[in-house]
């Protein structure tokens, strides 16, 4: 008998959250769903959320891992505030995520896991599936585990392996519900389990069983379609911030023609950059897993001294340890890129949660007057371009540059319009090869009149032998100097040369051209701020948005921009670090709006705050 025909509904956007135990494969399930969705041409934004514990006890609240994907037929800026669909693989996943669901949301639960023991682990006396407490939601109870095992019965697969395939059943069901193309997932399974044909077969069978379950059972009466988004023509891939940042560094090596040397010490959430770069040795990339954060930057600085593009990647606690070496790099005036993938602090804080609270440290966190350049990417794919920009500034101006990513952009993903390699910036540098003084001497601190950079004279160059170090240097000669006037001159020169770095003007987005309120953000808040501004504009409330990529030096036109609005609001995931800089530097009454929960702003939070400001001033 043919299955009853299902109704097909058109939607413009959906937010799905896959949630389960750490061992349930939710990150992988979310990744695959995202990839299928990308193939279809929807715009996407994703947000994984996982515990810091590697394997918290099974079935407990601390062990819940989730992956949220937002996709739409128009361009979107955030992973979405509230899920329309929650897939809960066990009672813990349901309990941990229920509060985020709006009324009417679809909840798909794996009933096989709703045992007395599992319910008790998370404090449910009665199953929420039975007590009417889920009345506000459209609950779809599915015996995911037993259905999966049933589908695999003929394959003779071990029960444990069969149970592990239940995430593919869930993926199959969701893929059916949202009419996703699944060929790429089948290919993925063949690659992933290339050495275990039995697991390829099991996972494929589980996927098909989930798809067919949706098609045949009456529990799911509606299928949804989301049309492709209108996106700029070109070739796209989905990419996370850490991946994009790694590729940006490789691109910087290629475009500068320099070997790339990464010194790193494993730290969440930056380690993936080390992992990724270690795979790209064919580009002349050397990665060193150092004994500590200090050695990691020390080795990178040593390599920079020798003519490499020196990079170190870390998170806040690592930057704290690297401070002395960053200060040396400032004194030596050598190029160096320091990547800080920020996480919630202080101390160990919440290593898998996001925050923007290292801005003060990046700008000011060193002994002495120790200025450097600071930039921040605004989205996952923008990490690629931010890495290139950090390398450009470092190489052109011979200075350390701190790149402030954060956990939200590092692990989140979005479609990325692949750039043409030829159009990437040309980062070629010229090493010093000959004496630069009229008397035939080599002066290691004689500056380029345009960039104020000193010559990069790498060891191995005959005739340019010289000594550099952390002691104050005499202007031009670089000899040790305790002369008061010289120190005054050098301190001011180091500050001036950072201020003189050429950075693009900040753009203001205000379609109405009549906004009186400006929202100023930096880094990863771009998405939620942008989504909130759009929502207000759609309701006829004008608001202007400006977003800073360069935090040091700040764009030349920033002061003028700030002064042309009645009100400047600065939302940040810290207690007002950029707002303080803005107030001190421009004497503008910038109003901070802060959240330090470890989670990104939701667009709704910002929309409601801004609505109040726009309406009431």
């Amino acid at each position, binding site marked *: 008998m043919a299955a009853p025909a299902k109704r097909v509904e058109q939607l413009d956007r959906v937010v799905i959250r896959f949630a389960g135990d750490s061992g349930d494969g939710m990150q992988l399930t979310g990744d695959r769903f995202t990839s299928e969705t990308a193939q279809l041409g929807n715009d996407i934004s994703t947000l994984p959320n996982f515990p810091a514990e590697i394997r918290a006890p099974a079935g407990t609240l601390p062990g819940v891992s989730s992956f949220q994907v937002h996709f739409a037929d128009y361009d979107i800026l955030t992973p979405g505030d509230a899920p329309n669909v929650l897939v809960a693989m066990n009672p813990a996943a349901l309990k941990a995520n229920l509060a985020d669901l709006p009324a009417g949301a679809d909840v798909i639960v794996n009933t096989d896991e709703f045992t007395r023991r599992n319910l008790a682990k998370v404090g449910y006396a009665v199953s929420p599936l039975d007590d009417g407490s889920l009345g506000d939601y459209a609950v779809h109870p599915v015996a995911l585990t037993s259905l999966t095992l049933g589908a695999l019965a003929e394959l003779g697969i071990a029960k444990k392996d069969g149970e592990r395939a239940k995430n593919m059943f869930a993926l199959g069901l969701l893929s059916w519900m949202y009419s996703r193309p699944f060929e790429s997932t089948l290919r993925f399974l063949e690659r992933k389990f290339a050495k275990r044909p039995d697991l390829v077969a099991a996972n494929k069978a589980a996927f098909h069983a989930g798809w067919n379950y949706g098609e045949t059972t009456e529990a799911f009466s509606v299928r949804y379609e989301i049309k492709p988004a209108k996106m700029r023509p070109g070739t796209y891939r*989905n990419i996370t911030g850490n991946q994009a940042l790694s590729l940006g560094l490789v691109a910087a090596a*290629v475009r500068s023609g320099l070997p790339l040397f990464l010194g790193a010490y494993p730290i969440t959430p930056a380690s993936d950059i080390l992992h990724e770069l270690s795979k790209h040795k064919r580009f002349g990339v*050397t990665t060193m897993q150092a*004994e500590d954060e200090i050695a990691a930057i020390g080795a990178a600085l040593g390599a920079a001294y020798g003519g490499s593009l*020196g990079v170190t990647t870390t998170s806040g606690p690592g930057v704290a340890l690297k401070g002395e070496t960053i200060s040396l790099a400032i004194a030596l005036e050598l190029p160096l890129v320091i990547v800080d993938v920020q996480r919630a602090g202080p101390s160990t804080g919440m290593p898998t949660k996001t925050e923007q609270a290292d801005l003060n440290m990046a700008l000011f966190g060193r002994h002495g007057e120790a200025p450097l350049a600071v930039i921040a990417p605004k989205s996952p794919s923008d990490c690629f371009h931010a890495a290139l920009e950090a390398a450009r500034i470092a190489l052109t101006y011979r200075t350390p540059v701190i790149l402030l990513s954060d956990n939200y952009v590092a692990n989140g993903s979005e479609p990325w319009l692949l750039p043409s*390699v030829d159009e990437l910036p040309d980062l070629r540098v010229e090493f010093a090869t000959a004496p630069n003084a009229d008397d035939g001497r080599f002066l290691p601190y004689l500056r380029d009149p345009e960039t104020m950079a000193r010559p990069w004279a790498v060891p191995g160059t005959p005739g340019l032998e010289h000594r550099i170090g952390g002691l104050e240097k005499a202007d031009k000669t670089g000899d040790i100097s305790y002369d008061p006037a010289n120190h005054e001159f050098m301190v001011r020169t180091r500050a001036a040369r950072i201020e003189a770095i050429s950075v693009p003007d900040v753009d203001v987005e205000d379609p109405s051209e009549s906004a009186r309120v400006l929202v100023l953000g930096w880094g990863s808040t771009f998405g939620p701020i942008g989504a909130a501004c759009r929502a207000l504009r759609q309701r006829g409330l004008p608001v202007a948005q400006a977003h800073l990529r360069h935090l040091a030096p700040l764009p030349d036109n920033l002061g003028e921009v700030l002064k042309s609005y009645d009100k400047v609001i600065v939302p940040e995931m810290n207690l007002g670090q950029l707002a303080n800089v803005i107030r001190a530097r421009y004497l503008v009454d910038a109003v901070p709006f802060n959240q330090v929960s470890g989670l990104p702003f939701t667009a709704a939070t910002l929309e409601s705050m801004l609505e109040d400001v726009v309406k009431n001033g």
Partner: protein
Amino acid sequence: MAETTIPLKLTAKDFKSDQEVRWCPGCGDYAILAAVQQFMPELGIPRENIVFVSGIGCSSRFPYYMNTYGMHSIHGRAPAIATGLSASRPDLSVWVVTGDGDALSIGGNHLIHALRRNVNLKILLFNNRIYGLTKGQYSPTSELGKITKSTPAGSADSPFNPLSLALGAEATFVARTIDSDRKHLQSVLRAAAEHQGSAFVEIYQNCNIFNDGAFDLIKDADTRDEHLIRLEQGQPITFNGLNVVHPEGSFGLKVQKGGTPIVHDATVDDPAYAFALSRLSGSDLGTTPIGVFRNVQRPSYDEIVRKQVLDARAQADGTPEEMLDGLLNAADTWTIL
């Protein structure tokens, strides 16, 4: 990098920089500097391919006085910085100059890891058993009970034996020499320079201001023969009518009258032998071996890292730009027309 040609015959003078040397008059560092400058031409390496990297402390001013490339860096961090330089520039001869505080106190971690990795560095540790630049506090090699400005009642912590520490990290080349014995110092430097991998050289160095005479026992003509054991490759280890023997049933080595002296072999693969030798010397300098304790071969970190990059490059096709284009596209991609 510039092609290097056959160097002109260099002399000690070529290695003297134009900077005024500013150690205290009578400091042992002068003797070491002169010995190094005099020995350098022997290497046959052009000056531009030699780099001295130092940390902080009296000894760490050394690079300023050498007319080579040089970096005076951060307290304790010279081995880390030199590791990055050496691993990325196999064409350079990289020397680290450090002191007992710099290498063993604040920089202990980097030292042991550089030695463990066998980075191609020549590490010269000037050991004067005191903090000089900060004006006279005890150091991690000061004898227990040392009375200094910061320990008026005597230091309470036991000292490191730098050679035992280096050997514990399985350093492939470990030696000890003395600032005032130029001939011996240069012979040790020569062996260190020839070594591929980390060469660790402890140089007993006199701080005549804060710890004067620390090594007189093994320097003075009157006493040194009773206490100094000169290690010579392939020679029995004997001194002053005494033998260094390996007593049956014992783990270590012992100084005694009579018995069969062991024959020194720095190439013994097991570090236990060199470690046993290193244990003959204590804080009191009663029996102090000098010379090359260990000199074995194993692949350097630089070589291994370099090979991985070269192998990956050899397998790669196309220009870097083409490869980059391939890398950017190496994922599930889709095209919007």
